[in-house]
């Protein structure tokens, strides 16, 4: 392979004020598995969607087989041999596997004979990838892993030379992931180029030849896979040396535990929390680090009382709060900032004023005055810089970052005993993120226990009093900030225990 299949040079893409790809250059070679590693929002999916012509780049060039190319649509990209399997599958659940594969082939005829060359062509890859899937089965009856294989067969049917897989293992069980790794290696052995977009270190270890790490829209590391340890990759992914200018929160004055989490185990459809125990004093900030998808969000929901604990308990100020979210007393003393605010923090059908009043909803008068709610909302929106500042807008009209600010305005503008923040700075620019941190630290200064889940290890190391690392639903260890060692944290993130490494 003298010449790379694909060369991207100086790709730039901007979404509003966010620079998603900043001067990114890379090559993709046949016969090689390239892992594109990075945290959520690092720009790796955006980059590949530009190659696949779903997005148009704002700058830069794409060479395919050494020739400059610009595709107008994914259809043209596919014709040039570039195929992409997305996190959301594009299969019709009601149709059979064969029907889905046939529909994806170009130039579908009016009538489809049962045993034609087309049918053979459609099944060519499926029989190799997954001989145990019956082509007559309806897609809705397949498991997620099987659907992914069908999706992959669909892409390969179009003679893809470059196969891009977007977070393929995020929906798979470990066994299914193992099988997928096998196929990926086979594809590369046959000379195809495979791009694996991922934030999981396990994916890298299993099948990557070369690694490119992205952070904040730029490439921060590129190396052959065997030259990088998991710890080095975590470092590259979450970054170091970004110095915050906020004052470091003062140490808690008392050591009497206010929040006690004991042997907490919980599960919601997949992600789980296993035997998590910790204690927090008033005013203490516990940072929870870890590669995302290791149970952090479930832990947050369980602490907030939204997910029932199967065993264990959460005690706040002497009162058990596990699975008691709809208890009015708890609604008043817990502040919760979930991930994906549109799904988890607001009611899309209600306007912003009502969404802002939700935490107080139980204490509103029997007949709340609209004016009062709107005036309060206006004040909050001004203070937290939610734009546009129009309380009558529907919640779905706001951008992600502004929605996050709205949620933070609602949750952190009142005095709480427990603050649970799940990636609170996600989607925010540096200034807005600092404003959020300031509010969070103010709550701690006022005596709240703060559980702060983040992927920004640097931020946790700068501000949290103690840092816990979650891996596979369990807490690998908790250290005080002063004693924290990046190497140790990185090892914990990669799943190696205290003694194992």
């Amino acid at each position, binding site marked *: 392979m003298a010449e790379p299949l694909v060369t991207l040079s100086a790709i730039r893409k901007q979404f509003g004020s966010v620079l998603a790809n900043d001067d990114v250059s890379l090559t993709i070679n046949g016969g090689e598995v390239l892992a594109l590693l990075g945290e959520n929002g690092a720009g790796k999916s955006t980059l590949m969607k530009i190659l696949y012509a779903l997005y148009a780049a704002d700058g830069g060039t794409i060479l395919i087989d050494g020739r400059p190319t610009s595709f107008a649509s994914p259809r043209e990209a596919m014709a040039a041999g570039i195929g992409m399997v997305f996190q959301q599958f594009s299969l019709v659940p009601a149709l059979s596997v064969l029907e889905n594969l046939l529909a994806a082939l170009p130039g579908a005829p009016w009538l489809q004979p049962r045993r034609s060359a087309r049918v053979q062509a459609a099944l060519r890859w499926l029989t190799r990838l997954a001989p145990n899937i019956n082509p007559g089965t309806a897609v809705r009856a397949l498991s997620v892993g099987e659907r992914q294989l069908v999706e992959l067969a669909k892409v390969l049917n179009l003679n893809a030379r470059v196969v891009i897989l977007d977070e393929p293992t995020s929906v798979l069980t470990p066994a299914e992931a193992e099988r997928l790794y096998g196929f990926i290696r086979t594809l590369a052995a046959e000379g195809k180029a495979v791009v694996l977009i991922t934030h999981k270190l396990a994916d890298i270890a299993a099948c990557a030849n070369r690694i490119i790490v992205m952070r904040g829209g730029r490439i921060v590391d590129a190396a052959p896979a065997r030259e990088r340890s998991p710890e080095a990759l975590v470092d590259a992914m979450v970054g170091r040396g970004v110095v915050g200018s906020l004052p470091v929160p003062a140490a808690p004055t008392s050591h009497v535990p206010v929040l006690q989490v004991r042997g907490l185990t919980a599960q919601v459809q997949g992600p789980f929390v296993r035997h998590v125990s910790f204690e927090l004093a008033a005013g203490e900030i516990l940072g929870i680090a870890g590669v995302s998808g290791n149970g952090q969000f479930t832990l947050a929901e369980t602490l907030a009382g939204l997910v029932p604990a199967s065993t264990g308990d959460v005690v706040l100020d002497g009162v058990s709060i596990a699975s008691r979210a*709809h208890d*009015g007393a708890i609604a008043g003393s817990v502040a919760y900032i979930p991930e994906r605010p549109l799904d988890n923090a*607001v009611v*899309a059908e*209600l306007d912003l004023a009502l969404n802002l009043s939700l935490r107080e909803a139980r204490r509103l008068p029997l007949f*709340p005055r609209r004016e009062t709610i709107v005036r309060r909302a206006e004040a909050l929106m001004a203070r937290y810089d939610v734009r546009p500042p129009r309380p009558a807008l529907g919640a779905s009209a706001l951008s992600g970052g502004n929605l996050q600010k709205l949620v933070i305005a609602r949750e952190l503008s009142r005095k709480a005993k427990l603050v649970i923040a799940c990636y609170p700075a996600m989607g925010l620019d540096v200034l807005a993120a600092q404003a959020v941190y300031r509010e969070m630290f103010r709550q701690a200064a006022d005596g709240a226990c703060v559980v702060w889940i983040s992927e920004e290890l640097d931020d946790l190391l700068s501000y949290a009093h103690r840092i816990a690392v979650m891996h596979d639903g369990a807490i690998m260890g908790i250290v005080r900030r002063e004693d924290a060692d990046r190497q140790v944290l990185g090892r914990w993130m990669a799943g190696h225990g205290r003694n194992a490494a």
Partner: protein
Amino acid sequence: MNPSTSTKIIAVLGGVAAFLGTAAIFLAAIGRPPFATLMQMALYAFGDSYSLSESLVKATPILLCALSVILPARLGLITVGAEGQLYFGALTGTAVVVSYPAAPMIVLMPAMLVAGAAGGAFWSGVAGLLRARSNVNETISTLLMNYVAVLLVSYVIYGAWKDPTSLGWPATIPFPKAATVPSVFGTRAHAGLVVGIIAAVILHIAVTYARWGLALRVLAGNRKVASMAGFDFNRQTLLVMAIGGALAGFAGICETSAIQGRLQAGISVGYGLTGFLVAWLSGQHFLRAIPIAVLVGGLIAAGDALQLYAKVPSASATIMQGLLFAVALGASGLAGKRTTRHG
């Protein structure tokens, strides 16, 4: 005029025109002069005070049943149990009357009405409890409980409560004067109509302006966020199901007392299902359900009259009612499509 208002008006006018058109075709097909028959129907429905009162008589249980569907719908629940709740309310209300037929009006009347409403609330509350406790689909449970309630009524009127003087006719004793819901406006229309209208207005105000309405909207919109706000889905499910059931049960006992005068089979001619359709036609809106219930009541009354005087087959009125619902739902669906396309 904003586009959504104009769209709505077009939808209503288009729906009315389409209904008249299809009804005319149907009448022509069964050999009736379409225009004259439609005119006659309008007269039979609302032409004089007697017709009007008959229409209001029909509209009363339909309105109450529609309200019993709309309230759970505000929480995102779909119940089809108004018919069963109506029957069960009639049963429990009648239980009071057959137990103490000689009680004075001041005791018997309120006891009967409260028992009727409580019966409906219980019957609906069972479905609500099943949903809240075990996540049993409320549409299926209310549907099945309809059959149970209707058969329970048959059981008592053929058995324990059968009036021995009725010469084998399956019915209870006639209700005494003290247990007869008074009529209003000097017509056959009874006080149930007034209660229905007042209930519609109160419920409208409660879900539109009260904190309770906010709770229902939040719960219907995002259960997780509702939890954070401290709203309890299970409690509200029980509450809306019970209130809805009470209204349908009240309709049942009023119908039994004021119109039938005794509990017998067939106290309802599909009022529960008709109420469900009225609720959907109103867009689950309490106040809009009032005129729609009156219109549909008029159509049913006119159908009865046509059958008597114009010798039109009895099924015709039901067919035309079906046409009305199909056309109205189609028209509102088309209007919705138009709105999304423009919006």
